[in-house]
Every structure is written in structure tokens, then in C-alpha cells.
């Protein structure tokens, strides 16, 4: 299983109802269905990914996250997951708000733009960072809302979210001493489990 999903699955209780935003090829839901008796849906807009979900027997709904989650009732899912999509959506704060409304807990992963390599690239070359992990140039990137760990934590606090778990990992989703001590400098990817201020 994809390394980030390996981490995330541990935070998803058995028998829970899960909504996976930008579910990709459905790997997480397929595994959870198989091993944790989880039910739920993946939202996706890429045709090949949708086909892959169908092949896996994952419930997939063709729905654009930028149009919101208005079709889902409050608290209708135990867990709402969004991996590597926060930086792609048009209104990250609004989608977070929606996730907190629809789900009791939310799991979010995103790339940390304050990682030392990004900082060095920008400082040294004076250009927007391009790497194997983030391979796009500024004008054709789907990533339109980069943030840092500190930015995200600030947003969490502004939105009165409670951070239940946080992990800073490298691009292979490994933890080490460095990214434990200086997450905003040495962590490449953030993995957060949050809940809304008014959650029970």
C-alpha cells in the first residue's frame, strides 16, 4: 500500500463510514473495505482513477471538490480523508470547513512548502521549487495553494479545529529525528487528524 495510506489506515476505526476526497485509484478505500469492514465513497474527477476505483469495487462518485460538499449531510461520515489534495483545491479553507461539517474527524495530508529544500531552491535559485516530489513548473501546476506546517497550524487555530494527531514525514513517509524536532524545516509532508471545535 502507498506509504501515506499505510499511516492513515491506522487512524480509521473498523466499521466506520469514510468519505475519501480525491480518492485517486481507490487504494485506501479498497483496503479499508477488505480489512476493516469500512463503508463509504470516494470522490474523484480523473477518468482513469474513476475506472480504477470501479475495477477495485470501490464506490466512486464523479464530483469536483471545488463545488463543495453541499450534497452531504452534517456528520454523515465518521472520517473524511483528503490526501495530497489541499493544495489543489480552489478554496482550501472552505473545503476544510465542509470536511469538518460532514465528518466527525478529518484526515488531511499536504506537502510542506517550508521544507529546507524548498527554502534553499527559492533562496539559491530565486525560482519556484521543482523537485521529483513536486515536479511541476509554476504555470502548469495543479498545486495552486501551497502552505507550510506553520500556516496550516495557524489555519487550524483560526478555524478552531482541534488537532488530534500530527506527523511530519519525509517524501517516503518516514519519520526521523530531524522531522520530529523541526517539522516545519525538515518535514516534507504533513499528516493531520483534526476535528471541529464543536465536535462531541
Amino acid at each position, binding site marked *: 500500500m502507498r506509504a501515506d495510506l499505510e499511516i492513515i489506515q491506522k487512524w480509521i476505526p473498523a466499521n466506520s463510514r469514510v468519505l475519501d476526497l480525491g480518492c485517486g485509484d481507490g487504494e485506501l478505500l479498497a483496503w479499508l473495505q477488505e480489512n476493516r469492514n469500512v463503508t463509504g*465513497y470516494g470522490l474523484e474527477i480523473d477518468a482513469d482513477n*474513476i475506472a480504477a*476505483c*470501479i*475495477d477495485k*469495487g470501490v*464506490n466512486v*462518485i*464523479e464530483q469536483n471538490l471545488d463545488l463543495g460538499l453541499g450534497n452531504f449531510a452534517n456528520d454523515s461520515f465518521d472520517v473524511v480523508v483528503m490526501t495530497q489534495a489541499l493544495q489543489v483545491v480552489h478554496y482550501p479553507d472552505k473545503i476544510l470547513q465542509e470536511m469538518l461539517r460532514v465528518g466527525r474527524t478529518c484526515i488531511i495530508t499536504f506537502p510542506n512548502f517550508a521544507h529546507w529544500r524548498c527554502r534553499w531552491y527559492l533562496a539559491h535559485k530565486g525560482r519556484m521549487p521543482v523537485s521529483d516530489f513536486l515536479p511541476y513548473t509554476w504555470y502548469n501546476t495543479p498545486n495552486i495553494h501551497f502552505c507550510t506546517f506553520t500556516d496550516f497550524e495557524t489555519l487550524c487555530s483560526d478555524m478552531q479545529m482541534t488537532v488530534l494527531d500530527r506527523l511530519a514525514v519525509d517524501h517516503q513517509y518516514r519519520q526521523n529525528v530531524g522531522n520530529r524536532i523541526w517539522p516545519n524545516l525538515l518535514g516534507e509532508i504533513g499528516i493531520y487528524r483534526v476535528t471541529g471545535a464543536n465536535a462531541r
Partner: protein
Amino acid sequence: MSSVYPADSVGLVSPKVAHFTQPLRLACGRTLDQYELTYETYGELNATASNAVLICHALSGTHHAAGYHHADDRKPGWWDSCIGPGKPIDTNKFFVVSPNNLGGCHGSTGPSSRNPKTDRIYGADFPVVTVEDWVHSQARLADLLGIEQWAAVVGGSLGGMQALQWTISYPDRVRHCISIAVAPRLSAQNIAFNEVARQAILTDPDFYAGHFVEEGKIPKRGLMLARMVGHITYLSDDSMGEKFGRELKTDRLNYDFHSVEFQVESYLRYQGEQFSNSFDANTYLLMTKALDYFDPAAEHAGDLTATFACAKANFYIISFTTDWRFSPARSKEIVDALMDAKKNVSYLEIDAPQGHDAFLIPIPRYLQAFSGYMNRISL
């Protein structure tokens, strides 16, 4: 005469007729004491009867969904692009049953059949049938064929409505519901178009209050107009623009009202003309009424979630971007209700320029996604 059919065709097929003598009580309150359903089958029913797929047809469809009736047929059945060996509804895997609906005009008992009680053609005396009635009659056909549970019930448009109704009326008898280019109920605009079509037929002097057969007449003009207005709603603005634009049949404008000048006029007249030669006007009226009346949520005060609460099937809903008759938003209403009711459902919105008719067209992503789902159905 010998003929070679494509390898992915079901080849030469012939319709069968099932005769039912157990009275069928209809939603309108009337009862059909006996009736016939004409149907075709493709593929083989397996030993446990677990591989049966029911095809439900749309407004002008027939039981002839795939293959050829005669070696020299120019065109195969109406959904040949989706039914056959290796096609989305793979006849190597599935046993496909495709009936003509009750009230139809292609073999099943309908307005153009003889009423055994009076020995006269039913005409306007044929009862109004609903989607629910069709589903009940199809269930009797399933009984007759020894099919306790369909692996899948599949249909587009009005056929998709029957597929949905199956999951509500017979939750234990459907494992998968594939409903394409559909709506949970007609909008006022949809009903309005149907009403124009009906008025075209009803006001045709050759309609004779529905007893035109006995008068030796056909309300051809009315039927033609009905088809023309219907046909406009099956296409998209883009597809009509692409196909006809403002292209003229003649090299100049005639400044009169009777010449066929624009290509689109010629096309619509041809479609109407063809249709009026092969379709029964009373059946057209019935089909449009069945569409207008379809509203499974009505019994639940309009609550679609509650409507599907009893359903046990897995759902696969597909819409097409330029379909304005039953737009993606209408399919989404169904999908949202199904998710709210915690049912297994997947939903695809296929980018296609062809409008409502797209469900009949072999669009690569559509066929691939359709195959992907059907392949996973376990028998």
C-alpha cells in the same frame, strides 16, 4: 443466404413470446386478464440462473436490443454497441433478457393488439400502464424463465427508470442496478414536451379518439410531429450545430413556408416520417404518460432517500454532460439520495457532446466504464 456477422455480435436472433394468463392488476386500477410479452434473449442461462441481465428499453425501444433478425438487416438491435461477446454486457458471461414493454407496439400486448374480450383492437381502450406495471410484468417473465434474481437490471432513460423501480419493487431480486441518463421524476419542462407530443397526436384528425386502426387510418402527421419535438430533446445544441448548423438543402432561400430549406428541417422530417411508419400512436401516448407518472418518491412525500431505504442492489448511475433532457444534476439527485440511504453507488458523468442520445452511442469512456463495472459482477 449466408452472412458473416461481426465477431462481437450476438448474430442472428429471433424474438420469443411469453403468454401470461394470471391477471395483472395495474396501477390505474384496471386488470389485464391475459397478455403477451415479446422478448429476445442472448447468451446462455447458467445452471444456478445467477447470470441473468434484464434490459429495459426506453420510449421508442423494442425487445430487439442486439443482433440481427435477418441476414440482410442493415442495422442491428438498438443497443448492439453494448450487448454482445466482449461488449460491456458480455453475452459470454451473461444471459441477457430483453422484453418489449406492455403497451408497446412491437409484439407485446398493447393498444394495437386485439382485446380477447371484445375481439376488437384495443386502441384507446388499452389501459394506461406505468413503470411499476412494467416491472411487475417483467418479474412474471423472470419467474417464467426461472430467474429468481437478476445479476443486473440495466436501462437508459425510461429504461433506467425501470431499473431503479426494480430495486424498490423487488429489492431481493436485483443485485446490480445500472441506470443511465435518467431522472428520479420528470420536471415540468419534461412533462411540457411530452404534452406537446401528445397534443400533436390527439388533435390529428386521423386519430379517431384512439380507434384509428378500425377506421383504417394512421395519425401520421401527429405522430411525426410528436417524434420531431421529442427528437429535439434527445440531441444537444452542440450536436445539432455540429451535424446541421445552418446548412441549406437548396442553394438559396425560397421565401416560402413549404420548402424544406435547412438540413435540420429535412432531418427532423425524415426522422418523424420513419417513426410514424413504424410506431403506434396510442403506444406513444402511453409511453409519455408512463414517463410523466414516474415518481417513486411520491409515496414517501417526495423523499428519495426514504424511497431507496429498502433497496439492496448496488447502483451504477451514469449521466452525460450535454444531456439537457435528463441532465447530470438529475442523476446526481438519485446518487445523493442513495449515498444518504447508505447504499453502494458509483456515479459517472461522461463528457459527451451528443445530448440525451449519448447513452446509445459507443463513446469510448462510457463503454470502458460500463465494461469495467459489468466485469466485476460476480455470478
